[in-house]
Every structure is written in C-alpha cells, then in structure tokens.
C-alpha cells in the first residue's frame, strides 16, 4: 500500500506538443495550430499562419481601384459581396459620388442574403465539428437557394463581383424579387427546423455551454467584432453605429447575448439570420426605380488624403484604410479583417479547456482562413 502511494507521487505528467492542421477538418482551411498540452488540457495555442498568404495589400498598390474590388472576393469568400461593397464605398465616398437609391437597396439586400448564406454554411459545419453530420446537408440545402439567386443576377455563385465603384455591374434579373421572396418564405420555416435539430439538443448544449468564455472587457481589448463580440454582450454592430448603403432605412434589433460562451455566439448567429430576413423583407417590395450605376471615369484617381470605411461582414468588422497620393493606385491599402482579430483571442479562451472544446470554440469563431492570410 505504501509502495503504491510512492509510485503515484512520482507519477509526473508531461507537457507535449501536438500539431493541429494545416489539413485538419475542424480548422476549416489551411490554419495550423501548435498546441501545448498537458494530458488533454490545453496550456497554449499558437497559430501558425501564412500557408495561403497572397499579399493582397501589396498587389493593391500596383492595381487600379476597379481591379482591387475583385481581389477582395478572395479574402473572406463567404462575404464576398460585402467585401466588394467596402472597397466601392471607400472609392465613392472619396470621390463624393451620389449613388442612386436603387443601388443602395440592392446592395443591402444582397449583402444580407450573403450573411444568411454564410451563416447557413457556418451552422452546417458547426454541427459537423461537434459530431452532428446531418446539419451540414441542411445548411447547404438552404444556402444553395441563395447561391442560385446570386448566379442568376450576378453571374457567379461565390465570388460575385457584382459591385463596381459607382454602382452595380448590371441591373438585377427580372426574377430576382420573386425568387428572393420565395426564399424568405422557405427559410422562415427552416430556422425553427435548425433549432429543433441542433439548438435544443442536449449533447450539443453540453458541448457548448460554458465553453470558451470571453468576457466583455476582453472582447473589446482583443478587438473582437461581429457575432464573437456580440456573444459577449459587446454592442459592436457596424450596421447600427456606422450605417452604410440602405441600412439607415431599415429597423432591426442588434442581437446580443451576455454569456460570452460558445453557445451564446451560436445563438447570436441564429438570431442574426432572423434579423437579416427581416431586413430583406423590409426592402424587397420597395426597390426604387432608377439607374443601376453612375458613370465614373475610366481611370479612377482618388484625391490626396486618407480614407477609412468599415462594414459589417458575416464575421465582423471589415475596415478598408486607403492612403492616396492622388494617383490611380493607392499608396497604401490596409484591410483590417475581422478574422485576424478574432483569431488573436483564441489562445485566451481555449487555455484550460480540452481539445474537443477547442474544436467547438473555433467553430463559433467562424474563421475563414483567406481572410486572415490576406
């Protein structure tokens, strides 16, 4: 008996490294995490980035503003329309262009549909990450309807390139309004289905409640934005504080949760789908008639100065910071991407948890790697 106790006292646990990614299914892309682990408890998470870094910011310095719009698709490809809009708004505000109301409304509708599509995909993979494969097919089924609408109007399903400085590439398809209405009607019956399938599931709730808790102070300090910030009770919706396009004409409630855990971030996104549907409903019947584009010069030169534009993508706050010297290329262009700041807090909220919790936590950070590796 005495001897056993001695052995137990001498039993030492040892810290070791484990490599997660860059080809891990739960990292949703080429992200490599170096985990320092004691048993199954995480001591440190260190992201290793740069596997798909294309240096978009350097490319922008040699490109014209029309070309830059197309590059932004390749950052957060699930919010491609909103990324395009960010650059277009920067250019339009710098040139003080008067944008037709029709353009603003159509941009907002497509932006909110993009958000729903992105959240559908997120919801599918979120379930898959915690072991519920069915959600993946449900999420993709509904996302497909939105992609079909985009394909008809924009000509592309993912990297839409529908925005140009000054307006839209071309007018909306005649079927657009009816198809969007059909989708809204369809999707209103599907979100309750999502809730029945996953939100109320006991196993799912046990996997997510109290996991990866982020306090409001830390959320602000780490620069969290989007659903990650709002899950911690931090009111940070750019659509509320700095409304752009037609967002000042609609009423919607910012979805806030105060728990700050994985489940709170999950709930925020589910509520955001309802909010986005409501925004689309408010606008779809009243798309103003008019031009879909105002004429701009073939070579766009921004006046000398600095311009900053922020928009709310499906992941959070995207900032475009342009320093112009008055030529046809930006002198410096910086993208403040939401995923980059949200990734920086991963170590803070994952330490002390288990590897399985890390997967659930990462699922609700909703990282898109090209957004981080710009």
């Amino acid at each position, binding site marked *: 008996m005495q001897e056993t106790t001695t052995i137990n006292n001498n039993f030492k646990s040892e810290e070791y490294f484990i490599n997660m990614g860059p080809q891990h299914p739960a990292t949703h892309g080429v992200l490599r995490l170096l985990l320092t682990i004691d048993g199954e408890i995480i001591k440190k998470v260190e992201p290793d980035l740069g596997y798909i870094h294309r240096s978009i910011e350097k490319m922008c310095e040699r490109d014209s503003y029309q070309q830059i719009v197309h590059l932004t698709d390749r950052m957060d490809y699930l919010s491609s329309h909103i990324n395009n809009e960010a650059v277009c708004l920067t250019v339009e505000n710098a040139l003080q262009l008067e944008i037709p109301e029709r353009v603003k409304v159509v941009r907002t509708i497509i932006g909110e549909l993009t958000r729903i599509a992105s959240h559908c995909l997120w919801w599918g993979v979120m379930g898959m990450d915690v072991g519920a494969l069915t959600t993946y097919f449900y999420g993709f089924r509904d996302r497909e309807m939105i992609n079909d609408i985009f394909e008809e109007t924009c000509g592309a399903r993912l990297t839409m390139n529908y925005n140009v400085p000054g307006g839209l590439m071309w007018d909306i398809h005649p079927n657009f309004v009816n198809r969007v209405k059909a989708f809204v009607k369809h999707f209103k019956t599907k979100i309750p289905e999502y809730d029945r399938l996953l939100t109320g599931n006991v196993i799912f709730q046990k996997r997510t409640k109290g996991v990866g808790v982020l306090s409001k102070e830390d959320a602000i300090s780490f*620069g969290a934005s989007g659903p990650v910030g709002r899950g911690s009770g931090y009111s940070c919706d750019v659509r509320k504080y700095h409304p752009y396009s037609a967002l000042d004409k609609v009423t919607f409630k910012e979805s806030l949760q105060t728990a700050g855990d994985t489940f709170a971030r999950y709930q925020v996104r589910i509520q955001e789908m309802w909010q986005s549907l409501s925004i689309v409903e408010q606008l779809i019947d009243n798309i103003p008639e008019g031009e879909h584009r105002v004429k701009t010069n073939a070579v766009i030169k921004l006046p000398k100065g600095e311009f900053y534009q922020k928009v709310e993508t499906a992941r959070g706050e995207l*900032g475009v*910071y342009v320093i112009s010297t008055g030529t046809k290329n930006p002198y410096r262009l910086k993208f403040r991407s939401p995923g980059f700041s949200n990734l920086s807090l991963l170590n803070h909220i994952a330490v002390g948890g288990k590897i399985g919790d890390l997967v659930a936590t990462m699922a609700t950070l909703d990282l898109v790697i090209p957004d981080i590796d710009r």
Partner: protein
Amino acid sequence: MTNEALQKLISSWFPNPEAGITPEPIQVSEGEGIAEPQEPINPSLLEFTEEGSQFLNVSVKPENLHELMTQLKASNETSFDYLFCLSGVDWGTALGVVYHLESTTYRHSIVVKVKTEDREDPNFDSVCDIWRTAEFHEREVFDFFGIKFHNHPNLKRLFLTEEWDGFPLRKDYVDEINMVIK
C-alpha cells in the same frame, strides 16, 4: 466629444516646454531684405490635423507614444478602449505606424501616427499592454515592415518564415521572381 474638444484636451497633456519662451529675434544683416516670419511655436508636443481625413489625426514622437496611448485609454473623458486598426506604413523616407482608435462609450474616434527616419533599426514601444489585439497586429507589422516593438511578449514573424529575406511591404523591397511590376 467633438474633435476640437478632443484636440484641446489631449494637447494639454503634452505641453511643449519651449512654448513659454519667446524666440530670440533673428539678427538680420542690412541689405539682405526682410527676414522670414517666424513660425508660431506649437504649444504642445503633439501635432494635430484634420486635413484629408475623416478623423482627427495626431502625430506623436516615438518617445511619447506609450504615454499618450496609456492616457487615451485610461482617461475617463477620452476612454479609447477599442483599437480597431493598426497599420504599418512606408512613407518613403520614414517608416511609421498608424493606430485607429474608437471609444465604445462615446463613439468618437482618433488616429495616432508615429514615424521614424531610421530604416535600419526602426523601433517603437509596443501597445500590447494597453490593447491586447495589438499583439497580432504588431507581429504583422514586424513581419512586413521590419518595425520592432519594445516589450512585445512574442515578437517573431507571423506569416513569413523566419529565414525570409527583407520586408515585403516596404517600398524598396525587390523580388525579381515573384513580383510582377507593371
């Protein structure tokens, strides 16, 4: 707070010690015409401008950077608790960092700029201890501009490999193989 009020408050934190002394009149030898009018001495060590930007811009010397940032966050009247963008910029001769700050309480914004002429060994104080988001952003700036940050807990390359030669976002970076120059 309006930009004017912000400017008044912040400039009072950093009084210029030389501002109180009247400058000595320059001796002009006869026949050389009229002397250039003296520029008024800035009463503060900071320089403010709103020209060509939608925000209030503050330029600060590197040695005052950390003190100013600490004050901006800690003061109850400014309370800039959200660092929403941190960018490195190569101004040609000088290298610098631009900080975009916003207050989540008052929703006012400010831009702080810091520059150095030293391209061989550019150095600034880190603001990681004030806003934790700066940790990753400063690593990115170090990676692409080679700007070092004092007191950064983990200053190493973020996207590129350790053995990468040069700093790609600098204007004088050359890579004949991978860069397409038009």
